[in-house]
């Protein structure tokens, strides 16, 4: 009797277990959990220009012009756009689009969004730059809008890929706090946010009224796990289905793990060395001395031969293979192949220590000099390791290099005050050559807004002229030629020393598939169940 009861209870529990397992596998298809490495600071899409924020904003909202995984423009809330006059851009809007609260999308919403951009209080990095060129917004009909500018402005579609469109009725008078509390976070995107705990997690639900392809998951949990090892461990334990910013030291192991699938693509972030152009040729650069530690009396970095020598001394292949474990490609310019403004005829970066020594001797430094190379230790992938590796390579051609790596906040402040002679830094470009040109290679000019991140203070009037022409050129072919010419000059001049372009890497569980994006954004809609 007793045995019988026990047997029956075992049978019952077996059924129960099977039931749970079944429910589990169904839930698996319905729910996905993503863990990202960098915290999202706000759900207000116009508060902070930051990749993690933009990724979440792209999940909830749409832009007039969306971008595909390779950052090419694709129709978003606008189905087509063109410059009807040199200073007028016309956008045709997508019909029958509804916001998460049911409101219809019209040109009014676009006009409202553009007007809000400069009016977000306490914004750490404002989106106002995208509405500044617009002098007047003209609503032609509910599905046609015209943006007037003072001068011809070729970058308008690119700018619009950064502006997430809000619902006027919901977001009028809404504060950033209202977005964080989800009261105002109604967009047109594939998922809507249903819960948000700041800096910890966001929960999304599928928006069934989405105008595009239906999102694959009913529910997506979006967690922030900033510790690299913890993120990897969470994936391996099956707690999460997708992680971003896979640490390169775990890469080899994850690649060989058959429970895991890696998705990767060459990104848009160049790691490069900035050099001191602030000091004139006959001035001392702060961290350069002769071999005995005495001031040199001149700034060797103003000599293009010295800059070329420093660039040639670097074995980029070794850095990519050994330090980055293959998660980067050696670079000779800011953008990877295939992006608007890529200079096809620049020679591949050569590693030639003997040639570098000869160039140094030619420039009057047969015995080299001493330099300190600075860099961050918590900002870019393996940043402190890269500066040490470059220290080795420069020391070998006679430029005895001391290395110092500091936390980013200390480092970037000093780099911005031109305190360093040579420093490692990175730049994530928009997919258009004019973006790094304007921010890094153009002569520093705060009124024009040029050279905002030109921390070495490189300056070349030829580059500036070509850039100025390109910024009002509406003929795309002509504009690309100008951008390419400007970039070629700046790179031949070694205005910066490009090192490598990082690869963006995600890792997912085997039963999920993720589309890698070159803009680093980790978006819920890029994850779907793997095809069987």
């Amino acid at each position, binding site marked *: 009797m007793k045995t019988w009861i026990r047997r029956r209870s075992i049978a019952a529990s077996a059924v129960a277990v099977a039931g749970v397992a079944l429910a589990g596998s169904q839930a698996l298809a319905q729910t996905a959990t993503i863990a990202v490495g960098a915290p999202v600071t706000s759900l207000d899409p116009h508060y902070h220009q930051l990749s993690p924020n933009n990724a979440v904003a792209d999940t909830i909202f749409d832009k007039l012009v969306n971008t595909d995984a390779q950052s090419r423009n694709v129709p978003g809330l606008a189905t087509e756009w063109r410059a009807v006059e040199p200073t007028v851009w016309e956008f045709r809007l997508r019909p029958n689009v509804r916001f998460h609260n049911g409101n219809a999308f019209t040109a009014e919403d676009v006009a409202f969004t553009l007007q809000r951009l400069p009016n977000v209080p306490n914004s750490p990095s404002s989106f106002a730059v995208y509405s500044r060129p617009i002098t007047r917004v003209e609503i032609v009909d509910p599905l046609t809008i015209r943006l007037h500018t003072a001068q011809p402005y070729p970058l308008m579609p690119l700018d619009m890929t950064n502006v997430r469109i809000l619902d006027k009725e919901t977001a009028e008078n809404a504060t950033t706090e209202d977005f964080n509390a989800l009261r105002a976070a109604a967009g047109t995107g594939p998922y809507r946010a249903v819960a948000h705990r700041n800096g910890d997690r966001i929960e999304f639900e599928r928006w069934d009224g989405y105008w595009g392809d239906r999102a694959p998951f009913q529910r997506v949990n979006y967690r922030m796990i900033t510790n690299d*090892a913890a993120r990897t461990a969470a994936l391996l334990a099956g707690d999460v289905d997708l992680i971003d910013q896979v640490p390169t030291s775990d890469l080899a192991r994850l690649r060989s793990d058959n429970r895991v699938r890696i998705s990767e693509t060459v990104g848009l972030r160049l790691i490069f060395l900035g050099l001191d152009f602030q000091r004139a040729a006959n001035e001392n650069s702060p961290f350069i001395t002769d071999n005995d530690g005495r001031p040199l009396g001149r700034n060797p970095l103003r000599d293009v031969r010295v800059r070329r020598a420093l660039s040639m001394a670097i074995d980029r292949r070794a850095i990519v293979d*050994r*330090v980055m474990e293959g998660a980067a490609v050696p670079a000779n310019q800011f953008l990877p192949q295939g992006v608007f403004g890529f200079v096809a005829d620049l020679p591949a970066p050569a590693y030639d220590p003997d040639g570098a020594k000869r160039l140094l001797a030619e420039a009057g430094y047969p015995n080299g000099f001493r330099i300190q190379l600075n860099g961050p230790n918590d900002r870019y992938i393996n940043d402190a390791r890269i500066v040490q590796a470059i220290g*080795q390579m420069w*020391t070998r051609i006679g430029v005895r290099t001391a290395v110092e*790596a500091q936390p980013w906040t200390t480092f970037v402040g000093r780099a911005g005050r031109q305190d360093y002679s040579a420093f490692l830094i990175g730049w994530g470009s928009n997919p258009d050559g004019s973006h790094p040109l304007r921010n890094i290679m153009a002569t520093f000019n705060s009124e024009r807004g040029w050279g905002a991140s030109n921390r070495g203070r490189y300056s070349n009037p030829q580059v500036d002229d070509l850039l100025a022409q390109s910024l009002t050129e509406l003929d795309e072919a002509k504009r690309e030629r100008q951008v390419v010419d400007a970039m070629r000059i700046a790179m031949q001049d070694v205005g910066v020393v490009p090192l490598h372009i990082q690869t963006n890497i995600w890792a997912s569980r085997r039963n999920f598939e993720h589309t890698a994006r070159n803009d680093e954004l980790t978006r819920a809609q890029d994850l779907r169940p793997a095809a069987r």
Partner: protein
Amino acid sequence: MSQAVMDGAAPAAPRKDKVETPFRRFVSEFAESKIALGGLIVFTIIALVAIFAPWLAPQNPYDLAQLDIMDGRMEPGTVGGAGFTYWLGTDDQGRDMLSGIMYGLRISLSVGAGSALIACMVGATLGLLAAYAGGRTDTVIMRLVDLQLSFPSILVALMILAFLGKGVMNVVIALVIVEWAYYARTVRGTALVERRREYIEAAQCLALPTHRILFRHLLPNCLPPLIVVATMQVARAIALEATLSFLGLGVPITEPSLGLLIANGYEYMLSGKYWISFYPGIALLVTIVSINLVGDQLRDVLNPRLKK
């Protein structure tokens, strides 16, 4: 009676009561513990290796020109590009781990011993002063000690380094600030007892200057417990320096100490490249254990209460 005779005689008299024959007796008592003797031998070897590292190490791990990134993360026993064998493997920069450990020991030992010495001088002086002067001086110094000891030392050291910035000298300063309180409290305790002894009264009657009484009469009689604390604190200082370097606040990245070597390899642990962290960790462990063994036995030998 001349002053000179008094000076010489006074410290010797009470010591005779505690340790009957000075040095030889001390040595034989110390050697009673074979473990402690072993610790002493191991520590001596470690110290010699550290001192003679530039002649013993196959590579100068602080000279960037001698490192090759292509030799990075090689397994123990691999022959590198420079022609010699990396018996303990290499780290991510191609630094020979054996050389790195030898040089790292130099930093660890000199920082540990240096900071312990300075902290000992500062702490002992303040402790003597507190015990001898009493009253308000005592209160102020001892409350400062209490305040200092109520914070975890790693927290205090982190705050100081955040303020001073990186560098070996700054680590020493931070360690001194963290550690002086232990010496001060130990010395004050002993000195409080000693100052009521007759020889101090005698010295006071002779109107000797205070500094002379403090350092020539009181201090020598407080030495035994001070030596014990100092040995233990050297080990603690080495561990603390390793912790600070592990957290990236100590030595420069191109001149790693043991803590930074461990930190460098930490990220590769999951990938199976154990040797980058493992061997410096062993070196650190052996060093600290050997010092502690010596310290333990010193305490047993020098502590009169344990002897009865």
